[in-house]
Protein backbone atom coordinates (compact mmCIF):
# COMPACT_ATOMS: atom_id res chain seq x y z
CA UNK A 1 0.00 0.00 0.00
CA UNK A 2 2.69 2.46 1.06
CA UNK A 3 4.72 1.44 -2.01
CA UNK A 4 1.85 2.30 -4.34
CA UNK A 5 1.47 5.71 -2.68
CA UNK A 6 5.20 6.27 -2.87
CA UNK A 7 5.24 5.70 -6.62
CA UNK A 8 2.20 7.93 -7.12
CA UNK A 9 3.81 10.76 -5.14
CA UNK A 10 7.20 10.21 -6.77
CA UNK A 11 5.63 10.31 -10.24
CA UNK A 12 3.69 13.51 -9.51
CA UNK A 13 6.79 15.09 -7.97
CA UNK A 14 8.95 14.34 -11.00
CA UNK A 15 6.15 15.15 -13.44
CA UNK A 16 5.58 18.45 -11.65
CA UNK A 17 9.28 19.22 -11.80
CA UNK A 18 9.31 18.61 -15.55
CA UNK A 19 6.16 20.71 -15.86
CA UNK A 20 7.84 23.64 -14.10
CA UNK A 21 10.55 23.71 -16.75
CA UNK A 22 8.37 23.05 -19.78
CA UNK A 23 5.56 25.50 -19.03
CA UNK A 24 5.69 28.70 -21.06
CA UNK A 25 3.37 30.48 -18.64
CA UNK A 26 5.07 31.44 -15.32
CA UNK A 27 1.84 30.99 -13.35
CA UNK A 28 1.56 27.48 -14.77
CA UNK A 29 5.16 26.77 -13.75
CA UNK A 30 4.36 27.99 -10.28
CA UNK A 31 1.36 25.70 -9.91
CA UNK A 32 3.42 22.74 -11.06
CA UNK A 33 5.97 23.74 -8.44
CA UNK A 34 3.26 23.73 -5.77
CA UNK A 35 2.23 20.28 -6.98
CA UNK A 36 5.81 19.05 -6.69
CA UNK A 37 6.16 20.44 -3.17
CA UNK A 38 2.86 18.85 -2.13
CA UNK A 39 3.95 15.48 -3.55
CA UNK A 40 7.19 15.67 -1.59
CA UNK A 41 5.13 16.44 1.52
CA UNK A 42 3.17 13.25 0.75
CA UNK A 43 6.43 11.28 0.65
CA UNK A 44 7.38 12.79 4.02
CA UNK A 45 4.08 11.52 5.44
CA UNK A 46 4.87 8.03 4.12
CA UNK A 47 8.17 8.27 6.00
CA UNK A 48 6.24 9.19 9.20
CA UNK A 49 7.78 12.67 9.12
CA UNK A 50 4.42 14.36 9.66
CA UNK A 51 5.89 17.51 11.12
CA UNK A 52 8.18 18.03 8.16
CA UNK A 53 5.26 17.46 5.78
CA UNK A 54 3.16 20.11 7.52
CA UNK A 55 6.03 22.60 7.55
CA UNK A 56 6.75 21.83 3.88
CA UNK A 57 3.18 22.75 2.92
CA UNK A 58 2.93 25.68 5.30
CA UNK A 59 6.23 27.36 4.49
CA UNK A 60 6.97 26.42 0.89
CA UNK A 61 3.60 25.84 -0.73
CA UNK A 62 1.70 28.29 1.47
CA UNK A 63 4.09 31.20 1.94
CA UNK A 64 7.12 31.12 -0.35
CA UNK A 65 5.17 30.18 -3.47
CA UNK A 66 2.51 32.81 -2.72
CA UNK A 67 5.30 35.38 -2.65
CA UNK A 68 6.54 34.01 -5.98
CA UNK A 69 3.02 34.45 -7.27
CA UNK A 70 3.08 38.07 -6.11
CA UNK A 71 6.36 38.71 -7.88
CA UNK A 72 5.07 37.16 -11.11
CA UNK A 73 1.83 39.14 -10.96
CA UNK A 74 3.35 42.47 -10.04
CA UNK A 75 6.21 42.29 -12.53
CA UNK A 76 3.62 41.04 -15.01
CA UNK A 77 6.43 39.58 -17.12
CA UNK A 78 4.81 40.58 -20.43
CA UNK A 79 1.86 38.61 -21.68
CA UNK A 80 3.73 36.83 -24.42
CA UNK A 81 6.01 34.87 -22.16
CA UNK A 82 8.14 33.43 -24.97
CA UNK A 83 10.41 36.46 -25.02
CA UNK A 84 11.26 36.03 -21.36
CA UNK A 85 12.94 32.70 -21.92
CA UNK A 86 16.68 33.11 -22.16
CA UNK A 87 18.67 31.12 -24.70
CA UNK A 88 22.28 30.39 -25.63
CA UNK A 89 24.93 30.69 -22.95
CA UNK A 90 22.44 31.24 -20.12
CA UNK A 91 20.56 28.09 -21.06
CA UNK A 92 23.84 26.15 -21.05
CA UNK A 93 24.78 27.59 -17.65
CA UNK A 94 21.37 26.63 -16.23
CA UNK A 95 21.74 23.04 -17.35
CA UNK A 96 25.33 22.92 -16.08
CA UNK A 97 24.27 24.14 -12.63
CA UNK A 98 21.41 21.63 -12.48
CA UNK A 99 23.78 18.85 -13.52
CA UNK A 100 26.34 19.83 -10.91
CA UNK A 101 23.74 19.83 -8.13
CA UNK A 102 22.43 16.47 -9.32
CA UNK A 103 25.97 15.04 -9.34
CA UNK A 104 26.63 16.26 -5.80
CA UNK A 105 23.38 14.72 -4.56
CA UNK A 106 24.17 11.42 -6.27
CA UNK A 107 27.60 11.38 -4.65
CA UNK A 108 26.06 11.98 -1.23
CA UNK A 109 23.51 9.22 -1.73
CA UNK A 110 26.07 6.66 -2.88
CA UNK A 111 27.90 6.75 0.44
CA UNK A 112 24.73 6.98 2.51
CA UNK A 113 25.79 4.23 4.95
CA UNK A 114 28.85 6.03 6.31
CA UNK A 115 27.63 9.55 5.69
CA UNK A 116 28.69 11.83 8.59
CA UNK A 117 25.37 13.70 8.39
CA UNK A 118 23.48 10.50 9.19
CA UNK A 119 25.75 9.50 12.08
CA UNK A 120 23.37 11.01 14.67
CA UNK A 121 20.29 9.39 13.14
CA UNK A 122 18.85 7.01 15.77
CA UNK A 123 17.39 4.54 13.25
CA UNK A 124 13.73 3.50 12.90
CA UNK A 125 13.43 1.87 16.36
CA UNK A 126 15.18 4.75 18.06
CA UNK A 127 12.89 7.18 16.23
CA UNK A 128 9.78 5.41 17.47
CA UNK A 129 10.99 5.57 21.05
CA UNK A 130 11.88 9.23 20.62
CA UNK A 131 8.42 10.00 19.24
CA UNK A 132 6.71 8.15 22.09
CA UNK A 133 8.73 10.07 24.66
CA UNK A 134 8.71 13.58 23.28
CA UNK A 135 5.94 13.74 20.73
CA UNK A 136 6.35 14.69 17.12
CA UNK A 137 7.10 18.36 17.79
CA UNK A 138 9.34 17.74 20.80
CA UNK A 139 11.55 15.35 18.83
CA UNK A 140 12.42 18.21 16.48
CA UNK A 141 12.25 21.12 18.91
CA UNK A 142 14.58 19.68 21.55
CA UNK A 143 17.70 19.25 19.38
CA UNK A 144 16.85 22.50 17.59
CA UNK A 145 16.82 24.53 20.80
CA UNK A 146 19.63 22.67 22.60
CA UNK A 147 22.30 21.11 20.36
CA UNK A 148 21.81 23.37 17.35
CA UNK A 149 20.67 26.55 19.07
CA UNK A 150 23.60 28.66 17.79
CA UNK A 151 23.01 27.64 14.19
CA UNK A 152 19.28 28.20 14.68
CA UNK A 153 19.73 31.70 16.07
CA UNK A 154 22.27 32.58 13.37
CA UNK A 155 19.76 31.51 10.71
CA UNK A 156 17.21 33.75 12.39
CA UNK A 157 19.62 36.70 12.27
CA UNK A 158 20.35 35.96 8.60
CA UNK A 159 16.64 36.11 7.81
CA UNK A 160 16.30 39.34 9.79
CA UNK A 161 19.18 40.89 7.85
CA UNK A 162 17.54 39.88 4.58
CA UNK A 163 14.27 41.40 5.77
CA UNK A 164 15.88 44.69 6.78
CA UNK A 165 17.77 44.74 3.47
CA UNK A 166 14.56 44.24 1.51
CA UNK A 167 12.83 47.07 3.38
CA UNK A 168 15.85 49.35 2.89
CA UNK A 169 15.88 48.70 -0.86
CA UNK A 170 12.14 49.13 -1.17
CA UNK A 171 12.18 52.42 0.76
CA UNK A 172 14.81 54.01 -1.51
CA UNK A 173 13.44 56.75 -3.69
CA UNK A 174 14.01 55.74 -7.30
Amino acid sequence: MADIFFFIFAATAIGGGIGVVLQKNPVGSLLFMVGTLASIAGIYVLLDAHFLAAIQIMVYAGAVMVLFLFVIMLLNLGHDYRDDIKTGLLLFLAFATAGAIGGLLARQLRGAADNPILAHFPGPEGMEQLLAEQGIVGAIARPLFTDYVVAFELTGILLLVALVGAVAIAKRKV
Partner: protein
Amino acid sequence: MNDLSLTAFVITSSVKVFAVFSILLASVALMTLVERRLAGFIQDRLGPNRVGPFGILQPAADGIKNILKEETMPATANRFFFVLAPALAIIPGVITFAVVPFAAPLPTPWGTVDMVVADIPIGILYILALSSLGVYGLFLAGWASNNKYAFLGGLRSASQMISYEVALGLSIVPVLFLAGNVTLTQIVWQQQQLGFWYILPLSLAFILFVISAFAETNRLPFDLPEAESELVTGYHTEYSGMKFSMFFIAEYSHILTASALMATLFLGGWSIPFWSGDHLLWYEGMLISGFTAAGEPIAAQGAWWKTILTFLSFAVKTAFFIGVFMWVRWTLPRFRYDQVMHLGWKVMLPVSLVYVMLLAGTILVLDQVGVEGFLFGAILTAVSGACTLIFVFVVDSDRLITGSAVSGTSREVRSPVRQVRRPALEPRTGAGVGQ
Protein backbone atom coordinates in the same frame (compact mmCIF):
# COMPACT_ATOMS: atom_id res chain seq x y z
CA MET B 1 -4.81 4.93 19.15
CA ASN B 2 -7.73 2.50 19.15
CA ASP B 3 -8.58 -1.16 19.44
CA LEU B 4 -10.18 -1.73 16.03
CA SER B 5 -9.13 -4.46 13.64
CA LEU B 6 -7.89 -3.29 10.24
CA THR B 7 -11.14 -4.20 8.46
CA ALA B 8 -13.24 -2.47 11.10
CA PHE B 9 -10.94 0.54 10.92
CA VAL B 10 -11.32 0.84 7.15
CA ILE B 11 -15.11 0.46 7.32
CA THR B 12 -15.62 2.88 10.22
CA SER B 13 -13.26 5.41 8.64
CA SER B 14 -15.15 5.28 5.35
CA VAL B 15 -18.45 5.77 7.18
CA LYS B 16 -17.00 8.69 9.13
CA VAL B 17 -15.60 10.35 6.01
CA PHE B 18 -18.92 9.99 4.22
CA ALA B 19 -20.97 11.18 7.22
CA VAL B 20 -18.75 14.17 8.02
CA PHE B 21 -18.57 15.25 4.39
CA SER B 22 -22.35 15.03 3.97
CA ILE B 23 -23.07 16.86 7.21
CA LEU B 24 -20.51 19.52 6.32
CA LEU B 25 -22.08 20.20 2.93
CA ALA B 26 -25.62 20.06 4.33
CA SER B 27 -24.64 22.53 7.05
CA VAL B 28 -23.10 24.80 4.45
CA ALA B 29 -26.36 24.74 2.48
CA LEU B 30 -28.33 25.55 5.63
CA MET B 31 -25.89 28.30 6.58
CA THR B 32 -26.63 30.18 3.36
CA LEU B 33 -30.28 30.19 4.33
CA VAL B 34 -29.63 31.07 7.98
CA GLU B 35 -27.41 33.94 6.91
CA ARG B 36 -30.09 35.41 4.68
CA ARG B 37 -32.81 34.97 7.27
CA LEU B 38 -30.59 36.47 9.94
CA ALA B 39 -29.72 39.37 7.64
CA GLY B 40 -33.45 39.85 7.16
CA PHE B 41 -34.01 39.82 10.92
CA ILE B 42 -31.21 42.32 11.59
CA GLN B 43 -32.39 44.63 8.81
CA ASP B 44 -36.00 44.34 9.93
CA ARG B 45 -37.31 42.43 6.91
CA LEU B 46 -38.28 38.83 6.30
CA GLY B 47 -35.64 37.20 4.11
CA PRO B 48 -36.36 34.20 1.87
CA ASN B 49 -39.39 32.38 3.29
CA ARG B 50 -41.33 31.16 0.24
CA VAL B 51 -39.71 27.81 -0.60
CA GLY B 52 -40.90 25.24 1.92
CA PRO B 53 -41.70 25.96 5.60
CA PHE B 54 -39.61 28.95 6.82
CA GLY B 55 -37.82 28.85 3.44
CA ILE B 56 -36.00 25.67 4.43
CA LEU B 57 -35.85 24.43 0.84
CA GLN B 58 -34.33 27.67 -0.45
CA PRO B 59 -30.76 26.19 -0.57
CA ALA B 60 -32.06 23.31 -2.70
CA ALA B 61 -33.77 25.75 -5.05
CA ASP B 62 -30.58 27.80 -5.28
CA GLY B 63 -28.54 24.69 -5.96
CA ILE B 64 -30.81 23.55 -8.79
CA LYS B 65 -30.82 27.04 -10.25
CA ASN B 66 -27.03 27.25 -10.17
CA ILE B 67 -26.57 23.85 -11.79
CA LEU B 68 -28.98 24.67 -14.60
CA LYS B 69 -27.55 28.13 -15.23
CA GLU B 70 -25.30 28.86 -18.17
CA GLU B 71 -21.58 28.68 -17.41
CA THR B 72 -19.99 31.78 -18.86
CA MET B 73 -16.35 32.02 -19.86
CA PRO B 74 -14.84 35.44 -20.58
CA ALA B 75 -13.24 35.56 -24.03
CA THR B 76 -9.90 36.76 -22.69
CA ALA B 77 -9.77 34.47 -19.68
CA ASN B 78 -7.10 31.83 -19.24
CA ARG B 79 -9.37 28.82 -19.71
CA PHE B 80 -7.44 26.23 -17.77
CA PHE B 81 -6.87 28.30 -14.63
CA PHE B 82 -10.34 29.80 -14.84
CA VAL B 83 -11.85 26.31 -14.43
CA LEU B 84 -9.23 25.17 -11.95
CA ALA B 85 -9.61 28.08 -9.53
CA PRO B 86 -13.02 27.16 -7.96
CA ALA B 87 -11.77 23.61 -7.35
CA LEU B 88 -8.62 24.93 -5.67
CA ALA B 89 -10.77 27.20 -3.52
CA ILE B 90 -13.14 24.49 -2.35
CA ILE B 91 -10.68 21.66 -1.55
CA PRO B 92 -8.90 23.19 1.48
CA GLY B 93 -12.25 24.37 2.81
CA VAL B 94 -13.82 20.92 2.94
CA ILE B 95 -10.85 18.79 4.00
CA THR B 96 -9.63 20.93 6.90
CA PHE B 97 -12.44 19.62 9.09
CA ALA B 98 -10.89 16.13 9.07
CA VAL B 99 -8.81 16.66 12.21
CA VAL B 100 -11.49 18.28 14.38
CA PRO B 101 -12.86 15.87 17.03
CA PHE B 102 -16.63 16.30 17.20
CA ALA B 103 -17.76 13.88 19.95
CA ALA B 104 -16.58 11.48 22.62
CA PRO B 105 -15.35 8.06 21.37
CA LEU B 106 -18.25 5.74 20.48
CA PRO B 107 -18.23 2.13 21.68
CA THR B 108 -19.37 -0.35 19.01
CA PRO B 109 -19.41 -4.18 18.94
CA TRP B 110 -16.18 -4.09 16.93
CA GLY B 111 -14.26 -1.75 19.23
CA THR B 112 -14.26 1.90 20.21
CA VAL B 113 -14.46 4.38 17.35
CA ASP B 114 -12.88 7.81 17.72
CA MET B 115 -15.26 10.55 16.66
CA VAL B 116 -12.75 12.35 14.47
CA VAL B 117 -12.02 11.55 10.84
CA ALA B 118 -8.23 11.51 11.21
CA ASP B 119 -6.54 11.97 14.57
CA ILE B 120 -3.16 12.71 13.00
CA PRO B 121 -0.25 13.61 15.29
CA ILE B 122 0.23 17.07 13.79
CA GLY B 123 -3.37 18.26 14.31
CA ILE B 124 -3.23 22.04 14.33
CA LEU B 125 -0.25 22.19 11.97
CA TYR B 126 -2.35 20.35 9.38
CA ILE B 127 -5.03 23.02 9.69
CA LEU B 128 -2.51 25.85 9.40
CA ALA B 129 -0.89 24.18 6.39
CA LEU B 130 -4.17 23.74 4.54
CA SER B 131 -5.51 27.17 5.39
CA SER B 132 -2.36 28.64 3.84
CA LEU B 133 -3.25 26.88 0.57
CA GLY B 134 -6.72 28.44 0.42
CA VAL B 135 -5.28 31.60 -1.08
CA TYR B 136 -4.41 29.96 -4.42
CA GLY B 137 -8.04 29.47 -5.44
CA LEU B 138 -9.02 33.08 -4.88
CA PHE B 139 -5.82 34.48 -6.36
CA LEU B 140 -5.99 32.34 -9.49
CA ALA B 141 -9.66 33.13 -9.95
CA GLY B 142 -8.83 36.82 -9.95
CA TRP B 143 -5.87 36.43 -12.25
CA ALA B 144 -7.40 33.99 -14.75
CA SER B 145 -10.52 36.12 -15.22
CA ASN B 146 -8.38 38.78 -16.90
CA ASN B 147 -10.55 41.47 -15.40
CA LYS B 148 -9.03 44.31 -13.43
CA TYR B 149 -11.60 44.22 -10.64
CA ALA B 150 -11.26 40.48 -10.27
CA PHE B 151 -7.48 40.83 -10.29
CA LEU B 152 -7.55 43.49 -7.58
CA GLY B 153 -9.79 41.25 -5.50
CA GLY B 154 -7.37 38.35 -5.93
CA LEU B 155 -4.38 40.49 -4.95
CA ARG B 156 -6.19 41.77 -1.89
CA SER B 157 -7.20 38.31 -0.75
CA ALA B 158 -3.65 37.02 -1.11
CA SER B 159 -2.03 39.89 0.78
CA GLN B 160 -4.69 39.83 3.48
CA MET B 161 -4.40 36.10 4.02
CA ILE B 162 -0.63 36.03 4.30
CA SER B 163 -0.72 39.04 6.63
CA TYR B 164 -3.16 37.50 9.08
CA GLU B 165 -1.74 33.99 8.90
CA VAL B 166 1.12 35.19 11.10
CA ALA B 167 -1.18 36.48 13.81
CA LEU B 168 -3.33 33.36 13.49
CA GLY B 169 -0.35 31.09 14.07
CA LEU B 170 0.91 33.18 16.97
CA SER B 171 -2.52 33.24 18.64
CA ILE B 172 -2.53 29.43 18.66
CA VAL B 173 0.89 29.24 20.34
CA PRO B 174 -0.47 29.94 23.89
CA VAL B 175 -2.93 27.06 23.42
CA LEU B 176 0.00 24.79 22.64
CA PHE B 177 1.78 26.05 25.78
CA LEU B 178 -1.08 24.89 27.95
CA ALA B 179 -1.94 21.70 26.08
CA GLY B 180 1.67 20.63 25.53
CA ASN B 181 0.56 18.87 22.36
CA VAL B 182 -0.63 19.74 18.87
CA THR B 183 -3.40 17.15 18.41
CA LEU B 184 -6.89 18.49 18.90
CA THR B 185 -8.09 15.48 20.95
CA GLN B 186 -5.31 16.25 23.43
CA ILE B 187 -6.31 19.89 23.55
CA VAL B 188 -9.91 18.95 24.41
CA TRP B 189 -8.61 16.52 27.03
CA GLN B 190 -6.31 19.07 28.64
CA GLN B 191 -9.15 21.55 28.92
CA GLN B 192 -11.27 18.92 30.64
CA GLN B 193 -8.43 18.13 33.03
CA LEU B 194 -7.63 21.75 33.84
CA GLY B 195 -11.31 22.46 34.47
CA PHE B 196 -10.96 25.74 32.56
CA TRP B 197 -11.96 26.36 29.00
CA TYR B 198 -9.00 28.08 27.39
CA ILE B 199 -11.12 31.13 26.62
CA LEU B 200 -10.57 32.18 30.27
CA PRO B 201 -6.84 31.61 30.82
CA LEU B 202 -6.06 32.65 27.23
CA SER B 203 -8.64 35.37 26.64
CA LEU B 204 -6.41 37.61 24.52
CA ALA B 205 -5.32 34.67 22.38
CA PHE B 206 -8.99 33.99 21.76
CA ILE B 207 -9.64 37.56 20.66
CA LEU B 208 -6.62 37.55 18.34
CA PHE B 209 -7.68 34.18 16.93
CA VAL B 210 -11.20 35.37 16.23
CA ILE B 211 -9.98 38.51 14.45
CA SER B 212 -7.48 36.53 12.35
CA ALA B 213 -10.12 33.92 11.55
CA PHE B 214 -12.43 36.63 10.25
CA ALA B 215 -9.62 37.91 8.05
CA GLU B 216 -8.67 34.42 6.85
CA THR B 217 -12.24 33.59 5.87
CA ASN B 218 -12.59 36.94 4.05
CA ARG B 219 -15.69 37.83 6.04
CA LEU B 220 -16.84 41.31 6.92
CA PRO B 221 -15.29 43.50 8.23
CA PHE B 222 -12.43 41.94 6.23
CA ASP B 223 -14.28 41.18 2.98
CA LEU B 224 -12.09 43.48 0.89
CA PRO B 225 -11.49 40.84 -1.75
CA GLU B 226 -15.20 41.05 -2.55
CA ALA B 227 -15.94 44.69 -1.65
CA GLU B 228 -18.91 44.99 -3.99
CA SER B 229 -19.03 48.77 -3.75
CA GLU B 230 -15.56 49.14 -5.28
CA LEU B 231 -14.69 45.89 -7.04
CA VAL B 232 -18.11 44.66 -8.30
CA THR B 233 -17.64 41.35 -6.44
CA GLY B 234 -13.88 40.95 -6.62
CA TYR B 235 -12.34 37.66 -7.61
CA HIS B 236 -15.59 35.93 -8.58
CA THR B 237 -16.94 38.75 -10.73
CA GLU B 238 -16.65 36.71 -13.93
CA TYR B 239 -17.99 33.44 -12.54
CA SER B 240 -21.50 32.15 -12.99
CA GLY B 241 -23.55 29.05 -12.29
CA MET B 242 -22.05 26.27 -10.21
CA LYS B 243 -18.51 27.68 -10.36
CA PHE B 244 -19.80 30.81 -8.67
CA SER B 245 -21.55 28.85 -5.97
CA MET B 246 -18.43 26.75 -5.41
CA PHE B 247 -16.72 29.90 -4.10
CA PHE B 248 -19.61 30.31 -1.71
CA ILE B 249 -19.43 26.69 -0.57
CA ALA B 250 -15.72 27.27 0.04
CA GLU B 251 -16.39 30.40 2.05
CA TYR B 252 -19.07 28.83 4.22
CA SER B 253 -17.12 25.65 4.84
CA HIS B 254 -14.22 27.85 5.94
CA ILE B 255 -16.56 29.60 8.36
CA LEU B 256 -17.79 26.25 9.66
CA THR B 257 -14.27 24.95 10.18
CA ALA B 258 -13.14 28.20 11.80
CA SER B 259 -16.13 28.09 14.18
CA ALA B 260 -15.44 24.45 15.01
CA LEU B 261 -11.82 25.38 15.71
CA MET B 262 -12.79 28.25 18.01
CA ALA B 263 -15.07 25.85 19.87
CA THR B 264 -12.37 23.19 20.09
CA LEU B 265 -9.40 25.37 20.99
CA PHE B 266 -11.09 27.78 23.37
CA LEU B 267 -14.46 26.36 24.49
CA GLY B 268 -13.47 22.80 25.32
CA GLY B 269 -14.58 21.20 22.04
CA TRP B 270 -17.12 18.46 22.64
CA SER B 271 -16.76 18.47 26.42
CA ILE B 272 -19.85 19.28 28.45
CA PRO B 273 -19.31 22.01 31.09
CA PHE B 274 -19.43 21.14 34.80
CA TRP B 275 -19.63 17.40 34.14
CA SER B 276 -16.68 15.07 34.44
CA GLY B 277 -18.53 12.01 33.07
CA ASP B 278 -17.46 12.81 29.52
CA HIS B 279 -13.69 12.78 30.11
CA LEU B 280 -12.31 10.15 27.74
CA LEU B 281 -8.89 9.73 26.20
CA TRP B 282 -6.76 6.98 24.68
CA TYR B 283 -3.77 6.50 26.94
CA GLU B 284 -1.29 3.68 26.31
CA GLY B 285 -3.85 1.48 24.61
CA MET B 286 -6.83 2.01 26.90
CA LEU B 287 -9.58 4.53 27.47
CA ILE B 288 -9.13 6.56 30.62
CA SER B 289 -11.14 9.24 32.36
CA GLY B 290 -8.32 10.77 34.38
CA PHE B 291 -5.45 10.07 36.73
CA THR B 292 -5.45 9.26 40.42
CA ALA B 293 -3.42 11.40 42.80
CA ALA B 294 -0.59 8.88 42.49
CA GLY B 295 -0.56 9.30 38.71
CA GLU B 296 -2.26 5.99 37.90
CA PRO B 297 -4.67 6.12 34.94
CA ILE B 298 -8.34 5.41 35.70
CA ALA B 299 -9.96 3.11 33.12
CA ALA B 300 -13.22 4.31 31.60
CA GLN B 301 -15.90 3.27 29.15
CA GLY B 302 -17.66 5.29 26.52
CA ALA B 303 -21.41 5.12 25.95
CA TRP B 304 -23.55 5.86 22.93
CA TRP B 305 -25.58 8.47 24.79
CA LYS B 306 -22.40 10.22 25.88
CA THR B 307 -21.33 10.41 22.25
CA ILE B 308 -24.65 11.95 21.29
CA LEU B 309 -24.62 14.43 24.18
CA THR B 310 -21.05 15.50 23.50
CA PHE B 311 -21.83 15.88 19.80
CA LEU B 312 -24.74 18.15 20.71
CA SER B 313 -22.44 20.16 22.95
CA PHE B 314 -19.97 20.54 20.07
CA ALA B 315 -22.74 21.47 17.63
CA VAL B 316 -24.14 24.14 19.96
CA LYS B 317 -20.71 25.75 20.46
CA THR B 318 -19.95 25.68 16.74
CA ALA B 319 -23.38 27.07 15.86
CA PHE B 320 -22.83 29.88 18.34
CA PHE B 321 -19.66 30.99 16.55
CA ILE B 322 -21.31 30.66 13.16
CA GLY B 323 -23.99 32.97 14.52
CA VAL B 324 -21.31 35.42 15.64
CA PHE B 325 -19.79 35.37 12.14
CA MET B 326 -23.15 36.30 10.61
CA TRP B 327 -24.07 38.78 13.32
CA VAL B 328 -20.79 40.64 12.79
CA ARG B 329 -21.27 40.64 9.03
CA TRP B 330 -24.55 42.51 9.25
CA THR B 331 -23.38 44.85 11.99
CA LEU B 332 -19.95 46.22 11.13
CA PRO B 333 -18.88 48.26 8.10
CA ARG B 334 -15.95 47.20 5.93
CA PHE B 335 -12.39 48.33 6.72
CA ARG B 336 -10.45 50.38 4.27
CA TYR B 337 -7.59 48.45 2.71
CA ASP B 338 -4.80 50.34 4.48
CA GLN B 339 -6.62 49.87 7.79
CA VAL B 340 -6.60 46.11 7.25
CA MET B 341 -2.85 46.11 6.67
CA HIS B 342 -2.29 48.50 9.57
CA LEU B 343 -4.27 46.29 11.94
CA GLY B 344 -2.54 43.14 10.75
CA TRP B 345 1.06 44.22 10.84
CA LYS B 346 1.21 47.06 13.37
CA VAL B 347 -1.34 45.92 15.93
CA MET B 348 -2.03 42.18 15.76
CA LEU B 349 1.53 41.02 15.11
CA PRO B 350 3.32 42.93 17.89
CA VAL B 351 0.50 42.35 20.36
CA SER B 352 0.46 38.61 19.75
CA LEU B 353 4.26 38.42 19.97
CA VAL B 354 4.34 40.27 23.30
CA TYR B 355 1.45 38.18 24.61
CA VAL B 356 3.17 34.92 23.69
CA MET B 357 6.33 36.04 25.51
CA LEU B 358 4.41 37.20 28.56
CA LEU B 359 2.36 34.04 28.81
CA ALA B 360 5.39 31.81 28.30
CA GLY B 361 7.08 33.63 31.16
CA THR B 362 4.03 33.32 33.42
CA ILE B 363 3.66 29.60 32.73
CA LEU B 364 7.38 29.05 33.33
CA VAL B 365 7.21 30.82 36.70
CA LEU B 366 4.06 28.93 37.73
CA ASP B 367 5.67 25.63 36.76
CA GLN B 368 8.82 26.45 38.71
CA VAL B 369 6.87 27.46 41.80
CA GLY B 370 4.75 24.33 41.45
CA VAL B 371 1.30 25.89 41.15
CA GLU B 372 -1.23 23.44 39.69
CA GLY B 373 -4.90 22.87 39.08
CA PHE B 374 -7.45 25.57 39.82
CA LEU B 375 -4.97 28.17 41.09
CA PHE B 376 -2.89 27.73 37.90
CA GLY B 377 -5.92 28.45 35.75
CA ALA B 378 -7.04 31.33 37.94
CA ILE B 379 -3.65 33.09 37.83
CA LEU B 380 -3.45 32.71 34.05
CA THR B 381 -7.00 34.01 33.76
CA ALA B 382 -6.03 37.10 35.76
CA VAL B 383 -2.89 37.72 33.67
CA SER B 384 -4.72 37.27 30.37
CA GLY B 385 -7.63 39.36 31.56
CA ALA B 386 -5.24 42.21 32.34
CA CYS B 387 -3.62 41.80 28.89
CA THR B 388 -7.03 41.86 27.24
CA LEU B 389 -8.03 45.03 29.05
CA ILE B 390 -4.76 46.69 28.07
CA PHE B 391 -5.21 45.55 24.47
CA VAL B 392 -8.78 46.73 24.14
CA PHE B 393 -8.60 50.01 26.05
CA VAL B 394 -4.99 51.16 25.63
CA VAL B 395 -3.13 49.57 22.73
CA ASP B 396 -6.03 49.36 20.33
CA SER B 397 -7.99 52.36 21.48
CA ASP B 398 -8.81 54.77 18.63
CA ARG B 399 -6.35 53.08 16.32
CA LEU B 400 -8.67 51.48 13.82
CA ILE B 401 -11.13 54.21 13.08
CA THR B 402 -8.61 56.94 12.34
CA GLY B 403 -6.59 54.81 9.95
CA SER B 404 -3.45 55.71 8.08
CA ALA B 405 -4.78 58.91 6.57
CA VAL B 406 -3.99 60.62 9.86
CA SER B 407 -1.50 58.20 11.37
CA GLY B 408 2.02 59.44 10.88
CA THR B 409 0.87 62.96 11.63
CA SER B 410 1.12 64.48 15.06
CA ARG B 411 -1.48 64.06 17.76
CA GLU B 412 -2.63 67.66 17.46
CA VAL B 413 -3.61 67.07 13.86
CA ARG B 414 -5.35 63.90 14.84
CA SER B 415 -7.48 65.32 17.62
CA PRO B 416 -10.09 67.14 15.49
CA VAL B 417 -10.68 63.91 13.59
CA ARG B 418 -11.30 62.18 16.85
CA GLN B 419 -13.89 64.67 17.94
CA VAL B 420 -16.05 64.20 14.89
CA ARG B 421 -15.78 60.46 15.16
CA ARG B 422 -18.74 59.94 17.39
CA PRO B 423 -21.51 62.37 16.55
CA ALA B 424 -24.37 62.37 19.02
CA LEU B 425 -27.06 60.03 17.80
CA GLU B 426 -30.46 61.53 17.36
CA PRO B 427 -33.17 59.31 18.79
CA ARG B 428 -35.05 57.71 15.96
CA THR B 429 -38.46 59.27 15.57
CA GLY B 430 -41.35 59.01 13.19
CA ALA B 431 -42.78 55.92 11.56
CA GLY B 432 -40.94 52.67 12.22
CA VAL B 433 -38.82 51.19 9.47
CA GLY B 434 -40.18 48.36 7.44
CA GLN B 435 -43.88 48.80 8.03
